[in-house]
């Protein structure tokens, strides 16, 4: 692998890992919005249960993924930077900073995901009002 390709791959991995918390939030937000929009457009009656089940299931998986990310942020950051290269090319301060960023962003995203997901417990899937 050339230095150029290695560098490009590192940046992509680092960006993806570093921003994985907000990216998971984006995925969750897009998923719940699109699932609700499409399933309700196809059949509001049939969607009443399926929308809620789908959103609850995906929310649970994403919450778990975010918790995992918070716990494993340093390891993931090290992988993104290619562990064997960390000491040669990256200072400890950079590594600590990037790990903290990954972890804190995942924490904020966790709050935002739970906040959105809770709505399925209280509101109808397709209608305007609760009965």
């Amino acid at each position, binding site marked *: 692998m050339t230095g150029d390709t290695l560098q490009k791959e590192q940046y992509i991995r680092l960006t993806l890992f570093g921003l994985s918390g907000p990216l998971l939030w984006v995925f969750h937000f897009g998923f719940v919005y699109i699932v609700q929009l499409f399933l309700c457009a196809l059949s509001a009656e049939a969607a009443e249960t399926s929308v809620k089940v789908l959103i609850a299931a995906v929310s649970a998986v994403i919450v778990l993924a975010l918790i995992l990310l918070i716990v494993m942020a340093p390891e993931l950051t090290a992988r993104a930077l290619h562990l064997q290269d960390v000491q040669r090319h990256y200072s400890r301060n950079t590594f600590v900073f990037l790990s903290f960023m990954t972890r804190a962003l995942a924490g904020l995203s966790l709050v935002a995901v739970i906040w959105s997901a*809770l709505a399925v417990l209280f509101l109808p899937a397709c209608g305007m009002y609760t009965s």
Partner: protein
Amino acid sequence: MPDIRGANVNASSALPNPAPRDPQEKEELLRIWASPPGWRLISDVNNRVIGLLYMGAALTFFVLAGILALVMRTQLAVPENSLVSQELYNQLFTVHGTTMMFLFAVPAVEALGVLLLPQMLAARDLPFPRLGAFAVWAYIIGGTVFFSTIFYDLAPQGGWFMYPPLTLSEYSPGNNADFWLLGIGFIEISAIAGAIEIIVGVLRTRPPGMSLDKLPVFAWAMLIFAGMIVVAFPAVILATMLLEIERSFGWVFFSAEHGGDPLLWQHLFWFFGHPEVYIIFLPAAGLVSMMVPTIARTPLVGHKLIVVALIATGFFSFGLWVHHMFTTGIPALSMAFFSAASMAVAIPSGVQIFSWIATLASSRQRIAFTPPALFILGMLFIFTVGGLTGVMVAMVPFDWQAHDTYFIVAHLHYVLIGGMVFPLFATYYYWAPMLSRRLLSERMGKWCFWLMFIGFNVAFLPMHVVGLAGMPRRVWTYGTESGFGIYNLVSTLGSYLIGIGVLIFIIDLVRNFRVGASGPVNPWKAGTLEWLPGDVYSTRSIPIVKSREPLWDQPGLTEEVERGQHYLPNAPTGGRETLITSPIEAKPQYVMQMPGPGWAHVVAAVLTAACFLLLTIKAVTIALVCGVGAIVACLVWVWELDKGPGAGPVDIGGGIKLPVYVPGSSGHSWWAMVIVMLVAGSLFFSYIFSYLYVWTVSPEYWPQGENQLPSLERGFTSALLFALAWLAFWASRKSLAQPGSKNPLTPLLVLGGVLLSVAGVGNEVHAYYQVGIDPTESTYAALVYMASVLNGQVILAVVIMGLFVVARHVAGKLDAVRCISLENTNLLAYYALAQALVSLLLIHGFPRGVLG
């Protein structure tokens, strides 16, 4: 080949170099970076000149839009007033809002980026100075023409958000709405050009040692700001395209009777419009985070948390757009998602507020209430109030009551003026000494602050009350019996106080602001690099950075840099240049050769503006001529940018020799092209959303049988053509000859790729036509053709770039080493072909999937 990950820089480096420098070096730097004299200053590209011009234009638009606000407030001062007509009032609030949002707020922030970033990063300039200058001139010309429409009764009347169906031809005949659609669409392109420059600048032109953890908060904020522009602006560009096409050619996107939906506009507009609030706020927050430590004489409390908060706000702000649409009949669950995101975004915003308060509280000295400090304290109060009312309107039931009332007018002004205008005025007072020989007057600054602060609260606080009492927005007058009169009179008096405050600031500028480098160095005793002594070339040498506040933590740095004891103290290539460093650790990678003053980018800006504005008045032929002229000017401008590796490698000091030409993913132009692809991708994503959204609204307008769909065979033919084009572009890079020779196959492969791409799009359009799809009949049909329009415009760019590459081959400026122009063309071609393939999947696959 050097290690492309960058030369190692550490504390035991050979710098600072104690040996005396040749005095001729500074003379040469001054000569190379000098601005053209007299009227030829127009052709300059130096960030100090361009940044000041940008800032001056933005400030002018702020004052002009403010005058419109005063006229509106005068009209509303008493009930049943007839100072202005209803029609003129509609034009006034439309131009006021549009100017403040598009011609003041975003450009002012980009201007600060252009002006401050190179200084904060100790770079000679941002990496694409001509692109920056092009963006500024395009904005000034386009903005001036747009604003002037208010004087000729040509201004749009649809509000700054231009909702259809009000803005469709039936209800808004004439050219008024077109001035908004084409003028603002064009200015957004200029904003995107600025964003590309800022992203690459922040990531690649940092001084050695300034790793991401040491990046100034303002640079972080600008990076996120520019990233948000890249994602958000294409949505409104698509919206303006759709609405203008419907108005001009009758393709139906927003007309419900043809299966369209006016709410599609609102989705696209607010997908841009809400992040826009944070696009404006985040850089201002970055500025506050730079000023507060200096005011408190202590490092920023929670620096890492602030960076996290900026990034999180950038993301979460994209989940709020529907909170502008709570009253449009959206299902409760959907609204709850957006309500939750609207409240979640308050957390990172709150983190920043508490961090600033903590930093000020942790100061061991008495805080001096200078104008910047006052404006920041004023901002803390005003923005917090705006944030709290923001959380209130994020609650769906409250929003239903407050929607479209003066409560919202109060809320948005508390957020925007508190979140952006007050920090901006703090910025003017704080950073003026960096550019001016004299400080601005502290006495006048305090007068300015108190008048603006008191005036603002007197003007906007009563609007909460009058809004809750039921006064709707955008009314040109109201009845005496409504009881709104006293609140409006007070608001009007407050607005005059703001006006007087701004006037005092302008007088202060006229009296004291004198551009020049002989002013006091670092009068606030700040810790960041923009306070290094500098001149037209930025800093004399580019320092090694070891902390977030290097001027506080690296004693003697100012003198060392000024004596030329750090990197690049001279001009080794004999021209304009700056250091390109790695994006994470900021290790020196290569020396970038930069372009100097020129006319081609100015001509391109003038002709691009002319093209868009002539289209507004339907002078299509002359507009097309101007468009072609603009493309030619762009090609002339970029012809000399790829200078090749001839001048390198060069010694930059500290025992490091660097190349002056690096192709591939380490090159700065590769990064810029990737960002262009992200812009195009975001535009296309907005299109896919539009297509699928319209289906959920009116599925009955979609084809009900296979015979109404374009044939699959034609789709496969297009896919094959695109795949072959991809192969041709890929092979063209492999076919490049070594320096000094030419391979005739290279231009043939590039031309082959171009022709195959064009044939692929042509085949698709013909397939739609053949099956009888008519874009004026239904929104489904209009969206089908729109896919080809979007593919066609990217492929047109590939065609132009392909022909450019062929010309460079003929001129002997293309080979296996000097290959950046071909690499970038191929990158865009790969993207264009991928987009075309996805659109085939959507147009041919989705309706068949729904039909089962």
